[in-house]
């Protein structure tokens, strides 16, 4: 791992509203000895209204940044924000697919981009490059009682031909990463469901309903916390809960953490350093519940002894399989 070096593209939201995501990602990468550099003079990734009006322009915005990275001699960029990542991956995709498109884009740039940079989300890097073992190795703390519903949002792994990461309908990377870190995850059916954030301003009613669905489904799945990997998801699910409660007559109060914040906690990082305090729905209970792995082991033993008295039967669930017939 160590010898490899990545580029790091924080992007606008991680500079602002999602600074805790930025902080936690950097902290976790540091903990896992992932080396990275930031390109100087980076600019908008193109995932702004740009891509709704002009694809070449949007791609050019992305390609400019990718070119900067290419120039400092790096071939992979970590873009924690899915919007940036998708903008990059999309530009990369369409520029490598079509020579014509590539030329159009490069015409707009000071220096032509030679498509030499692969873009990955922080999750993708942890899951594919760092690997679950390395993630598990570093764990020092446990969060007993914490049940996390991993929420992937809409673009982290879609569309498949562009994201080229995880299953478009049933992603499991975040589940795996959190499990590797010793965190319990629930079987969350709405891990991809639209939270409506994109319409946050235009169609508030609808967004409230959608957000409500996602949050309540998380609770139904037995979760007491939602893990996200996208600033927009986080903001919408976290910030909107009060509003949702008003309109839907619910009283939701479930903390929305970046999955990197949860990793930070089990890695024993100080909560401030990973911006836990910036959350709207307080995650203090989770922080207080944190204990060291040793204590956790002791508890487990005690429970085991208690259990030992009444042995339980369990029938392994058979996976459903079709069989050839002749």
């Amino acid at each position, binding site marked *: 791992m160590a010898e490899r070096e990545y580029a790091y593209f924080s992007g606008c939201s991680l500079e602002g509203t999602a600074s805790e995501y930025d902080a936690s990602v950097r902290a976790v990468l540091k903990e896992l000895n992932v080396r990275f550099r930031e390109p100087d003079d980076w600019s908008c990734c193109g995932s702004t209204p740009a891509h709704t009006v002009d694809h070449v322009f949007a791609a050019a915005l992305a390609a400019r940044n990718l070119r900067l990275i290419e120039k400092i001699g790096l071939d992979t960029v970590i873009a924690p924000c899915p919007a940036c990542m998708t903008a990059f991956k999309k530009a990369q995709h369409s520029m490598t697919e079509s020579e014509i498109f590539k030329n159009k884009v490069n015409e707009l740039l000071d220096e032509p981009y030679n498509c030499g940079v692969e873009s990955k989300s922080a999750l993708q890097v942890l899951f594919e490059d760092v690997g679950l073992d390395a993630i598990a190795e570093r764990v020092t703390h446990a969060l007993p009682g914490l049940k996390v519903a991993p929420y992937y949002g809409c673009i982290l792994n879609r569309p498949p031909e562009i994201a080229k990461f995880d*299953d*478009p*309908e*049933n992603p499991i990377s975040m589940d795996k990463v959190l499990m590797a870190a010793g965190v319990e995850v629930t*079987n969350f*059916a*709405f891990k991809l469901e639209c939270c409506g954030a994109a319409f946050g301003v235009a169609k508030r009613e609808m967004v409230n309903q959608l957000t409500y669905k996602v949050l309540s*489904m998380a609770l*139904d799945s037995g979760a007491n916390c939602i893990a996200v990997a996208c600033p927009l998801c986080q903001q919408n699910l976290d910030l909107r809960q009060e509003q949702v409660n008003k309109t839907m007559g619910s009283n939701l109060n479930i903390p929305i953490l970046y999955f990197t914040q949860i990793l930070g906690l089990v890695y024993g990082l100080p909560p401030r350093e990973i911006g836990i305090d910036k959350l709207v729905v307080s995650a203090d209970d989770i922080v207080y519940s944190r204990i060291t792995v040793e204590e956790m082991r002791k508890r487990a033993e005690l429970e085991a002894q208690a259990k030992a008295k009444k042995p339980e039967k369990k*029938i*392994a*669930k*058979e*996976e*459903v*399989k*079709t*069989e*050839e*017939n*002749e």
Partner: protein
Amino acid sequence: MRVGVFICHCGSNIAGTIDVAKVAEETKKLPGVVYSTTYMYTCSEPGQEEIQKAIKTENLDRVVVAACSPRMHELTFRRTVAKAGLNRYFFEQANIREHISWIGTDKELNTNKAIEAVRMAVEKVKLNKPLFSSSFKINKRVLVIGGGVAGMQAALDCADGGLEVLLVEKSPSVGGMMSRLDKTFPTIDCSICILGPKMVDVAQHEKIKLYAYSEIDEIKGYVGNYQVKIRKKATYVDWNKCTGCGACMEKCPSKNSYDHFNFGIAPTRAINIPFPQAIPKKAKIDPEYCRQFTKGKCGVCAKICPTKAIDYEMQDEIVTEDVGAIIVATGYSLIDMEKLPEYGGGRYPDVISGIQYERLLNASGPTSGHIVRPSDNAEPKTVVFVACAGSRDKSIGIPYCSNFCCMYIAKQAILTKDHIPDSQSYVFYMDIRSPGKGYDEFTRRAQEEYGVKYIRGRVSRIYPKGNKMVVRGADTLLGTQVEVEADLVVLGTAVISNADAGHMAEKLHISYDTFGFYVEGHPKLRPVETNTSGVFLAGACQGPKDIPASVGQGSAAASKVQALFSKDMLESDPAVAKVNINACVGCLKCVGTCPFQAIKEKELRDGRIVADVIETVCAGCGVCTSTCPCGAIQLQHFTDNQILAEVNAICLK
């Protein structure tokens, strides 16, 4: 040399985009051509008479017909010229329809291309030699691969016709998919009740030799004379001793073995008899679950068995059989639910496949016909059926329709109502495909008499909510989203070819399409033949099929075999390799490359070594001809000179 050329209009199929008159007039100028004419439908009887007349009046000694593909009518016209007294190989067919008139839009270019096509044929036919087929004895035994309803039908029809039949079934019992079904549409009669007797007949027919739990290892030879290696898989139970009493199954301690017969809807024992009506009704051990194999100790069944039939040391056994024809009825598989993540990908116990539901409905199934949900064994009140679960879905590579899901879903919905009168069924569908006799009425009954709610639209997601499964989809007729809270969801999973369909095809030298289904000789006119003579198709291995269609094909394939075996001798195709012993230098490179070991070395009287072709074994591929450096071994009808003549006809300017 007097060549006659006959250009076919094929109605407007050819004449529409080719100036046939010009082709006739131009080709008349070719050296050797003494007669050239056009005809509306050359393959018609009067059309063929025209050719025969011309052969007489113009005393032609070679004939070229420019018409459709030789794959269509070559044999027809060979017979035509033969009737007129010419050797049937004094004929060539130029394909100006499939390869020209149907694919080119520019009439001038097409016409020119047609003229050249005829010129090639003329140049070749001038070099054609008279060939005479020799005849060889055939082995009148038939091998049927697959003991599903199609295979059994084929086997029984052949056997009743007096032929010796070998029926090879991969699983421990014959019966195939149909033996798993509860009722059959549209008559709702009990599947096993109508299939059972056939299964018994198969077992008892003195002409049928059944190889259950066996697979095909290797097939060698050619039509009339195949050598087949059959692998009898180890059952670890001596079937000669086993009485099928089932005592072992009751006592077997490993109770969580995967039940292939029930598609895993419920576990079975490591030693098991697949189902009560199994034929043969014998037990077999699944070593991956049996404790004797996994843990190395147990032996309960061995102790319990009254006839001491258990044999943990048993090995696979290979037997070799000779047959003259092969009927392939290997059936189909169903797509793995893991391929459908948006429907839970098999993670939710209460989302099951149609065939699993079939087992739940079935009185001899794991629940003795009581419909219960796998998760909590509760009786479902709301059941949602999802048609086209995988079918007609390009994104997972299954663009085709699975043919019978619409019907069995209607059937299952009806049966659900019968079993649970206060239940409500929903069906999400794309289109209702019910083109069979009595089929459409049946789907209507489901809706009108049984109140099944049909929702036209695809399901986008299935997710659990409390102890229910929420099915969310579009209702394209109302143009809204719909969500149904179901107790049980049944997926009409797509029909796919068997995982090993490709390998089987390779063993048989038959071709298969992109989806692994076997390719028939002609999509309309040779539905059960393959391009490999002596090998026939029956049932769903050729494409998704319901029961009547499969049975029909089984009988059709059987009748084809009967026809083939109606003669004692078969005519060998004379278009085989022939050695010119004067040119052969005996380097024997051909011997090494022949895929059929059809070439042996032969010592001449003067002690010279030359290659020698075994005519009946040679399949006529011509690999030897392109191997031989001195052109001494020539594939008749496709000799170097004949192909060169065609090359020169279009290249030399």
